[in-house]
Every structure is written in structure tokens, then in C-alpha cells.
């Protein structure tokens, strides 16, 4: 396995980087949604606060 190894590794790195970035993105989105859901639930349960 000698010829073009660098570009092969670049290709694999690109694939995993895209996947990793998407996982980070949906993790952050999940955190934001849960926080917002808690906030709105509290507003419904205690409307005067």
C-alpha cells in the first residue's frame, strides 16, 4: 500500500470529519431544544412567574 496513500487518508478523514461535525451539530441542537422545552414547560406550569 504505497501509491496515493496520502490522498486515500485525506478522503477517509474528510468522510469522518463531515460525520463528526454533523454529530456535534445535532448534539448541540438537542441540548438547545431540551433547554427550551424545559423553559416553555415552566412557563405553562407557572404562568405568573
Amino acid at each position, binding site marked *: *500500500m*504505497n*501509491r*496515493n*496513500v496520502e*490522498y*486515500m487518508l*485525506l*478522503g*477517509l478523514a*474528510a*468522510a469522518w470529519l*463531515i*460525520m463528526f461535525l*454533523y*454529530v456535534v451539530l*445535532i448534539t448541540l*441542537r*438537542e441540548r438547545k*431544544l*431540551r433547554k*427550551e*422545552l424545559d423553559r*416553555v*414547560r415552566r*412557563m*405553562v406550569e407557572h*404562568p405568573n412567574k
Partner: protein
Amino acid sequence: MREKIIIGLALFAGALLAWNMNTIFTALPDELNQGAIYRIIYFHVPANILGMLGFGAGMLLSVGYLTTKDLRYDALAASVTEVALVFASIGLATGSIWARIIWGVWWAWDVRLTSWLVCWLIFGGYLMLRRAVEEPNQRARFAAVVSVLGTVNAYISYKSIEWWNTQHPQPVLSLRNGGGMAPGMEAPIYWNLLALACFAAILVMVRVRQEAFAREIDTLRRMVHAQ
């Protein structure tokens, strides 16, 4: 229950991928003409297959929404389409890196590549449209129309290597009458497809749950405004 399914799928997909990577990097020889770079096919082809299947599934779910007006179809369509776009991105990126070595350029305005890029842009627009429209039913209706148009383009892209003379290689999988690879080299493509399909299923499950959260937030906000 959903958490257990996600963990089970992740463990299965991780183990399958590790075993398959071991086969690809240690057992398989370099391709005679391309050298090591041909191994990109083990990600490029499964990623593009998942992208195309995801766009197709998203379109069917969008049609489901249009016929029933049930927003759960729309939520599922949005989730599947977003994950499909991630895999289409992987397909485009890995294809471009392969082309740099084999064709000597990062990109060629070939029918297959261009139609797939247009498809990627249409579904990128689909996600932007969903963010731009507030009213859920209107958003679902507009998104469904874009999904149908995008999937027609995806099908054209899929068939383009048969319909036109393209720089992009002809089918290599025996499933598609390609038969250009030795069986030992072809099998890991299917195993990688299975492993990546499991990852795709996990991502879709997480996204569907997020869509449910978003719907609940929307309903609760309306209740707060009505109080």
C-alpha cells in the same frame, strides 16, 4: 427503549466497521492502476447510495404528508433528508479527492457530478426553506414540493452514467450489472453500506426525537400565548 436500540445499533455498526476496515486495509491489495486511492470507493459508494435512498425516502414521506396532512410524515421526511444530505456531502467530498488523483483535477463539470451537486444544492435549499417558513403546514407543503423536485433530480443523477457519456466511471457493482470488481473487493462495499446504514438510522432516530421536541415547544408556546 429507543436509547437501547440506538446503543445496540451503534455497537453493531462500530464492530462491523472495525472488522471491515481491517479487511480493507490489511487483506485487500492495492488496485493495479489506481494504487491505494481506490479504497475511497468503500466510503464513496455507500455514502452516495445512502444519500440517494434517503432523498427517495424523504420524497415518499413528503408525499405521505401531502396526502394525509399528518405532520409526523413531514418531521420524518425532514429528518431523513437532512441525514441523506450529510451522506451526499461525504460522497461529493470523497469523490472530489479521488478525482484529484485519477483525473488530475478536483472537479469536472461532468453530467453525473454536476447533477449530483445540483441535487445537493436543492436539498440544502430544502433545509434553508424549512428554517425560513414559520407556519408548520405551509412549511411542510413547500418542503414536500422541493423534496419531489430534488428526488427527480437525484434519479436523473443516478441514471446519468447510463444515459450520457460521462467522465464518471460506469457502474462497478455487480448488482447494477457492473461487474468491474473482484468479488473479494466488492463485498466490503456492502458491509460498509450496512454499517453506515446503521449510523444513518441512529442519526434519523435522534433527529425525529428533536422534531418531536420542536413540535412540543411550538404547541406549548401557543398555549402560553393563549393564556
